[in-house]
């Protein structure tokens, strides 16, 4: 395009103003959005006497690591090392189980034909709408009868079934893969598992990563299940430990709580920062268009 004097300059000027306004708005609003997170991080580095006197400030006047040292010592003689280890076990194995089972099931529903498939698929979709409150009580009684309270079994075993939301998402991905690829592999002598393993899985990696990220942070943040099943403080996950640690009736050391809260957020953020490209692409391309 050739610039045609005045109108176009005023147009670019207008566009420039809009751009400035846009970025200004996003930054200011974004600051308020992120303020709670920044505030807890800042507070965790403030000495105890500054946390509530210098309350809005995001820059500690003096920096200290005392809160981390005191917080990490935990409570009842159990350091946060234990809680983080428990959370990593739960979130790590939980995610592995969920994603593996979801991928297998998604392949079964998306590519294979068998008796009763429609019925099971419908039931699976219906579980999407099921509040966990309906299952949690009989599940608790069942695990209590099995003598599995205060073990990780009640947390991990239900993960063997995958999760309807992930199954559906991975299915949408698999449906986008041309069937000719399956046929070619089949002619080359692959059985169904071979097709799943060699052809489908590598192609649905974005969906698997998306499912893994979601699963990881659902599990890391999960509070209800550990709260119900784990009563021995040695088995507490970070979320249950934080709740006990931050019990409003007993607490005095806020700096330590903010320090541990900050640390509790780190694993999720690390996963998010490393994989967010997959996450946003995974959702955008999963064909969630109703």
């Amino acid at each position, binding site marked *: 395009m050739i610039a045609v004097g005045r109108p176009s300059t005023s147009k670019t000027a207008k566009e420039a103003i809009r751009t400035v306004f846009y970025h200004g708005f996003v930054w200011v609003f974004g600051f308020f959005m992120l303020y709670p997170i920044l*505030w*807890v991080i800042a507070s965790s580095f403030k000495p105890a006497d500054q946390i509530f006197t210098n309350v809005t400030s995001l820059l500690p006047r003096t920096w200290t690591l005392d809160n981390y040292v005191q917080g990490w010592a935990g409570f009842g003689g159990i350091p946060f090392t234990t809680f983080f280890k428990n959370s990593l076990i739960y979130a790590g194995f939980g995610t592995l189980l969920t994603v593996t089972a979801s991928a297998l099931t998604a392949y*079964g529903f998306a590519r294979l*034909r068998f008796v009763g498939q429609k019925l*099971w698929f419908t039931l699976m979709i219906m579980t999407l709408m099921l509040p966990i409150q309906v299952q949690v009580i009989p599940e608790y009684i069942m695990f209590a009868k099995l003598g599995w309270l205060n073990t990780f079994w009640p947390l991990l*075993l239900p993960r063997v079934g995958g999760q309807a939301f992930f199954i559906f998402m991975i299915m949408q991905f698999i449906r986008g893969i041309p069937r000719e690829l399956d046929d070619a592999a089949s002619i080359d002598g692959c059985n169904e598992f071979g097709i799943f393993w060699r052809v489908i899985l590598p192609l649905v990696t974005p969906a698997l990563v998306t499912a893994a990220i979601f699963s990881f942070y659902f599990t890391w943040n999960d509070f209800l299940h550990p709260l119900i099943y784990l009563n021995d403080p040695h088995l507490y996950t970070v979320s249950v430990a934080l709740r006990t640690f931050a019990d*409003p009736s007993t607490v005095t050391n806020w700096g330590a709580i903010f320090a541990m809260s900050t640390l509790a957020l780190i694993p999720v*953020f690390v996963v998010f920062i490393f994989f967010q490209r997959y996450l946003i692409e995974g959702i955008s391309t999963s064909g969630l*268009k109703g």
Partner: protein
Amino acid sequence: MSSVAPERVSRSVALPASARPEAVSSARRRAWRRNLTGYLFIAPWLFGFLAFTAIPMLGSAFLAFTDYNVLSQNLKWVGLDNFQRMLFNDPRYWRSVQATFSFALVAVPLRLCFALALAMLFNNSRKLVYGYRAAYYAPSIVGASVAVAVVWRELFGKNSPVNAFLAQFGIPTYAWLGDPATALWTVILLAMWEFGSPMLIFLAGLRQIPGQLYEAAAIDGAGPWKRFIRITIPMLTPLIFFNLILQMIFGFTVFTSAFIISGGTGAPLDSLLLYSLYLYQKGFKDFQMGYAAAMAWALLFVIGAFTALIFRSSASWVHYESGSEDDR
């Protein structure tokens, strides 16, 4: 059809029996094999579904009609007593219903509007927009955690950043969490703050709206607001529908934030006694598992009714593009 598996050829050559029964049994065997393969693949899910969904649901349906204490192992059939008590003799139950409806009816629409507004804001190819999306999504990945709920409680406490900020405008210090009228709003605000997943879904939908539609409308003289109402909203209705159902279920089942902010009690004056929290108290504090199971089924019934209502109404407001299947 024409491609014949090699093993089958060799077998029919090897067995010189009359052709027909062999073909039938081989077809049967293949069907059997196919079914077996299918079931092997869905086996993990099927096990999980039966053991941790179907059977527990039947269990809780049964428990709802009993008085069961998990500690003393006492089980007594009480018929409809639990439901009767819930509906007529438990004022706390109704306060929890009221709190939950106030929460869901405010938080869900606000959260969806917020998600859509920000999806619109980020649906462009400006510089840095990719980073902006990630930054605005960040609260959502931690929003449901105990850590954030603990922080939230302190943000709105007496000696808190929110009060300090408002004091600069001459607004006096206020105990937001001590007043039943404002306590629920802090939880609503926390729910709004985690708008990320509906935002990403809207964003995906916005990208799929063909640009020509907007160009044509602009030529016809439609302003931005008119284009939004006439094009964006109708084209997004399938996703609004999808998000509405998911968020409604979320709204009725929120637990962690209300638990942490109220210290597990639902205080002040039961204003934070959301349904899931009361269910937890009944089931796992008072160990009245029969009553809690009855509450769970009442919740399921309400969610089912709302889902049905949204589905029924969808015919009149959800627009599906005909022929949109062929782009996949």
